[in-house]
């Protein structure tokens, strides 16, 4: 039996601006000791999925409206709060993006670590303190015993994240959920923290769910990846498979829109047109259709489920042999995946639903000073066709940032 099994999870937020369809039926499993990446942009539901698993959705707005979360055979969605609290911290631990907001600024590190240990283990204060020193040393904090009396602000960002990791691993949890653990850190510090996280979870056999927007981070850290978009898992595969044969147009788009350090000179970036969907609209059809170069007429109406690329009926959901599955009506070919755009002769993407205009490309301005610039930019910027993005509706305010939590 899998350590963690998320079945058809649906999470919505009731806000005064309407219902946010944050997670729309997510199913995945995780074995003991496995390292899974949850990849996607802000608002794709990756963090909300995590919060729903550990029952920390902001109340009263956020609610699990469907599905189950089985951890060690127990359904966390129906367990009494007290029992969930026991599991949190001891069996499932979390690390968040910003260690400054996850640590209590008015308590010393000693108080916070001892509190965590004593909350779950029957040990004396002295024993808990001894353990705290061990843990701080384990995560590479110099002069651990002296630093116990320090407050969080006396640590640097990287050190704070180390303290968070120490607290998270204090009780040797079976599952560690790390939500953008290095996004707030500099790249050399990120390397330190990822290295630490990898070594410790490997040593302790801790399963890891790593939530990030950075494809580079998951490439080196995980064994399996779920790519999320608009509250759906759109592609799932082992890490090796996903990068060797990316299959969903969104995954392909992501891979082509970030410059690689080892890219060939002059390699062009192919941005994903348009912008992420408005989560206040109930999903109809494929959520990626408005931005997709490969879309068919069917994509507007019908949301394809995850299907095995090989067409097999039996699906392996975990481990090294996990089946590569993608949710797409018109999967790009391997050549198209490498090129980042459709190549099939005569293929034209389906037109948008009636009345849509292009939000970014709908430009008809006069061309004077810039001498043909607009036309040239338009022609160049849209090697395929300019795709409609907002379906011509008024643009809603969008207060989220790249690295938002929920």
């Amino acid at each position, binding site marked *: 039996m899998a350590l963690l099994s998320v079945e058809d999870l649906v999470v919505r937020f009731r806000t005064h601006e309407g219902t946010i369809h944050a997670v729309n039926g997510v199913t995945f499993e995780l074995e003991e000791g496995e390292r899974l990446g949850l990849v996607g942009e802000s608002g794709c539901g990756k963090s909300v999925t995590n919060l729903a698993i550990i029952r920390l959705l902001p109340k009263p707005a956020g609610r699990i409206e469907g599905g189950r979360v089985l951890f060690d055979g127990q359904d966390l969605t129906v367990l009494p709060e007290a029992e969930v609290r026991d599991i949190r911290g001891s069996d499932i631990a979390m690390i968040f993006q910003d260690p400054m907001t996850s640590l209590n600024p008015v308590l010393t590190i000693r108080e916070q670590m001892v509190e965590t240990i004593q909350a779950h283990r029957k040990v004396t204060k002295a024993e808990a303190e001894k353990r705290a020193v061990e843990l701080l040393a384990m995560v590479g904090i*110099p002069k651990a015993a002296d630093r116990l009396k320090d407050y969080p602000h006396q640590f640097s960002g990287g050190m704070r994240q180390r303290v968070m990791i120490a607290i998270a691993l204090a009780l040797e949890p079976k599952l560690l959920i790390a939500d953008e653990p290095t996004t707030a850190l500099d790249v*050399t510090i990120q390397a330190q923290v990822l290295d630490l996280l990898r070594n410790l979870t490997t040593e302790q056999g801790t399963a890891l769910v790593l939530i990030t927007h950075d494809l580079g981070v998951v490439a080196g850290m995980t064994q399996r990846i779920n790519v999320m978009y608009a509250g759906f898992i759109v592609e799932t595969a082992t890490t090796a498979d996903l990068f060797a044969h990316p299959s969903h147009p969104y995954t392909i788009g992501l891979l082509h829109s970030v410059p690689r350090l080892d890219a060939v000179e002059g390699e062009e970036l192919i941005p994903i047109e348009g912008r992420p969907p408005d989560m206040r609209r109930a999903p109809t059809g494929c959520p990626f259709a408005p931005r997709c170069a490969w879309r068919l007429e069917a994509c507007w109406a019908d949301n394809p489920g995850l299907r095995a690329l090989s067409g097999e009926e039996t699906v392996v959901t975990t481990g090294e042999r996990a089946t590569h599955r993608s949710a797409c009506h018109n999967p790009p070919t391997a050549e198209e995946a490498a090129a980042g755009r459709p190549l099939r002769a005569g293929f034209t993407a389906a037109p948008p639903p009636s009345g849509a205009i292009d939000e970014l490309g709908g430009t008809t301005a006069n061309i004077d000073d810039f001498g043909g610039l607009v036309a040239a930019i338009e022609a160049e910027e849209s090697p395929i066709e300019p795709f409609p993005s907002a379906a011509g509706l008024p643009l809603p305010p969008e207060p989220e940032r790249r690295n938002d939590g929920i």
Partner: protein
Amino acid sequence: MTASDSGAAPVVPALLEVRDLKVHFPIREGLIFERHVGDIRAVDGISFSMARGETLGLVGESGCGKSTTGRAIIRLYDPTAGNVVFDGVDTTSLDRSGLKAMRRRMQMIFQDPYASLDPRMTAGGIVAEPLDIHGVGAKRDRQDRVRELLATVGLNPDYAERYPHEFSGGQRQRIGVARALALEPDLIIADEPISALDVSIQAQIINLLERLQGRLGLAYLFIAHDLSVVRHISDRIAVMYLGRIVEVAGSKELNTAPLHPYTVALLSAIPIPDPVVESRRRRIILKGDVPSPANPPTGCRFHTRCWLRERLGDPEVCSAEDPGLRELSPGHTVACHFAEQVDGSAEQVQAVGARPAAGAAPAAPASRPEPPTHPQVPASA
């Protein structure tokens, strides 16, 4: 007119020349009688130049002084020492009206499109503001110019009447770009212009900036922490560490043959979205954090964290002597006493994620056996 201006006119004038620029922020203590107790040496003596139409990437980690450098160039901060010569004019000596004229040719794009646009102004108003301030064109013409600018950055000109909150992050950054373009500047200082944006939107803005440069002959000072983005857009790259430039080279050369130990470490730390490459690479894990710029280390500022110094048995000179920038090959300068040792080292080869097919046997023997950085996890407990 300053002393530096009275010298011989340069033969091929650089668009921008920064000479020994220092920006220190005083640390004060005491409430009534504020005492000056020290300085944050955010930028501590850097020099570089930029040609017309060139993109210079300024890269480094937070606190290295890269943003301060950008702001000091455009005089949002007053330099503590040094000169910034823009098209032959020393901007450090300019008065208000001189600055205003200078800034017409030098514009800035900021990191956070949520904070850098006035929420009470329309998109059109924001783009028109520089035109109004500098009195460019007749009022009637400005409307057309604004529409044209919005179109240039890929926004629908009909959106000119909308307010910033009605736009997404990527669109707001486009408004910021349109505003920077309004006065047809020669130089745009782009301070982390994409790091607040979603991954899929970042490429839209990078491509836009590249296309505008091709058409308008703009020079960019592109300030960012992400070396892979900087590499993509820049002709040359300057790497900063703790208020100093430690290495300058052509974009390609910096990435294939970095010569400063810090650059090597920085490159090795950047994850590459490819598990095959990742499993082959070995990261150089730098110890500890960046020291405080209020009290930088003596000698080479990187010596406290340097892997090469450790390898060489902690030579005295690293902590005693401040290495100046040396030109090791044409156009490639580096501030390290032992830069020659970096070239061809196993670390340098590993850091750039070089394919083994290149057949480049590490010139320097791997002096210590390094454990694989990516151990395989046993299937499950």
